[in-house]
Structure formats: C-alpha cells, structure tokens
C-alpha cells in the first residue's frame, strides 16, 4: 500500500495515486514547519489515516497551514557589497564575500550540528573561483556544466546557512531576497544566467540557475 503527501493538488488530481494528503505548504516543505515535532506528527498522522479508507483514490486536504506570523524580521549578520571596490574581478569578490560569511556559516553548522554543503567536489573557495571565473570570462566550456551546477548549489547552501545561522524561525523568502539581490553571488548568478541564455551550448543551465520567481524580475 502507499500513502503520501502532495504539495501540488493539481498533480494529485490528475495522476490519481491511491492515497494522497494535499498540504498547503511552500514547495520544499512537505512536512510544514522545521523543528516543530507536533505539527509534523499531525501531518504524518493525517496521511497515515488515509490507510483506513474503504475506497479510493483518496485525495484529502490537510486542514492546517503554517503560521506565517512566526517569522520575525531577518537580522543579516553581514553587510554585503559595502566595502568591495567595483573594479575587483568576480573571483575575488566572491572569495571576500565567502570569507566574511565563513564565521556565520560555522556558527550555523555548530548550532544545527550539520551542513547541507557538500555536493560539489570542490571546496568553497574553489567553488567561488569556478563560478567567478565563468562570469569574468563571460562563458565556460559545455563540459563544465555539471561542475558549475554543483558549485552553485554548494555556494547557495553556504550562503543560506550563514544567513540563517542564528536560531529561527526564518522567513525563507526574506533570506533568498538577500541572496539574490544583496550579494555578489546573487549578482554573479544573474550574470551567469544571462551568459547561458545567449549561448546555445549552455542554455540547459538556464533551467537550473535562477528560480522562476527571480527570473520574472529580469
């Protein structure tokens, strides 16, 4: 038997799996709220309860939403782009930004006792160099697409973990707004997106660099 959660009601309606609990939470958070054991257990309990239905397919809605009022204003630990001369090359800009964020990344990793950084085979400075060099050179080899994607993922994880080093709850939208619009990394990724969009051999990467919500602002 299967039972499970869906974040996209339309897909569950169309695919008709045997038992589905639709939840109204943001994509990326099928259990709702981080570190809220009771809330997560209520979601699981509702999905497991579907196993008792006599007939299917079953698609039911979870009656609660996450409490958005829990998010306070985000206090950013670093002032971005304040001291960097604009003439710096991209690798140096990113390297310095990473050096500023490193104590906060470490603090966050200590608090959580884990990190989600680690999909790239490169260390963080090398990730910065790889991305920075691609932007600086206004292009890169098609063979480097996978390496670049993994470098970008680790950089984003490093930045977001540093920005959320202090105990939450954190407003994910506010954190990502800082990342995309206030940091050199965000600026570099917008540049990289533009470079890929204008190069047929690199166009694949445009799907995997910027979220749709950010692309709308271009």
């Amino acid at each position: 038997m299967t039972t499970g959660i869906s974040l996209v009601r339309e897909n569950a309606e169309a695919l008709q799996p045997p038992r589905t609990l639709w939840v109204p939470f943001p994509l990326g958070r099928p259990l709702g709220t981080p570190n809220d054991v009771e809330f997560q257990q209520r979601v699981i309990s509702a999905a497991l309860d579907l196993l008792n239905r006599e007939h299917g397919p079953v698609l039911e809605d979870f009656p609660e939403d996450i409490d958005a009022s829990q998010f306070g204003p985000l206090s950013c630990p670093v002032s971005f782009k304040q001291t960097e001369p604009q003439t710096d090359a991209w690798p140096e800009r990113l390297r310095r930004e990473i050096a500023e964020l490193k104590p906060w990344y470490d603090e966050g990793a200590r608090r959580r006792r884990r990190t989600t950084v680690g999909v790239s085979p490169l260390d963080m400075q090398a990730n910065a160099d790889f991305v920075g060099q691609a932007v600086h050179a206004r292009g890169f080899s098609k063979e480097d697409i996978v390496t670049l994607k993994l470098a970008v993922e680790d950089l984003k994880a490093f930045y977001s973990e540093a920005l959320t080093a202090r105990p939450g709850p954190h407003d994910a939208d506010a954190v990502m707004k800082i990342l995309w619009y206030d940091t050199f990394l965000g600026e570099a990724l917008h540049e990289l997106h533009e470079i890929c969009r204008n190069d047929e051999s690199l166009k694949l990467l445009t799907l995997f660099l910027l979220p749709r919500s950010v692309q709308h602002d271009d």
Partner: protein
Amino acid sequence: MLGKNLAPLGPLPWVRSKKPLSQQKIALITTAGLHVRDDDKFAFTDASYRVIPRELRGDDLLMSHTSVNFDRIGFAEDVNVVFPIDRFRELQESGAIGSLANNHYSFMGAGLLPDAYEASVRPLAEIMRNEEVDVAFLTPV
C-alpha cells in the same frame, strides 16, 4: 511537473489494509533527491534511486535535486521537514506503527514524467515486497 496536464497513472492499484497500523512495516520514499553524503549525486534528469539505510542519521543526508524552484532552507534547518525519519522513529518507539523497513529510498523528481521511473520502481517494489514492507510513505519536495 508543475502545470503539466498528466494522465492518471493507470488502473488504480487499490489494496485495503489487512492489519492495524501498529503491526505494519513502513518504508519512506522521497522524491527530494536526497542521498548519503558519499553516494553518487543525481544527474540533471535521473530516474534511478538511492538507498537510505534505516540506521542512517538524517543529518548525514545531502540533496542534489536539480530544481531550483523550491525552498531548501527548511531542509537545512531540519531534515524532517523533507524526510521525516525522526518522526517515524518516534512512531515506532511509541508502538503507533509496527516497524520501519531496513532501507528507505530516494528519487529525484524533476525533468521526467512519471513513466520514466517505471523501470526503477518495479524492481524496487519487488525488493520491498520481499522485505514484507506493508506501507510506502511517499513525500515530495
């Protein structure tokens, strides 16, 4: 898959529960592109799966999902918001569920339609059947 017009998966494989939840063995299956830190990352499009051993700490999981259109901060804060392994351990300890399977499984749900996963899923279903798993608990991302 957002916004795609999808056909039903096929004839409904409806199986009724034959025993109480407190006697059932449960495996978790996620499409969040999770894997053990040293395992192969998921490719841009990838219908294969990774094994997540029962004893693994959720904190040892990484995510190499292709999509950039979902929040990852929640996962960084608490693995259970994506992969509720600690919650299911609590259910096992309290006796609410019978047991957890020896392994859980992770797919990466992006870039492919459901049909593409069938070649991986059918043998996996056989593996789970041989282990006498009663319930697969499915979570997206």
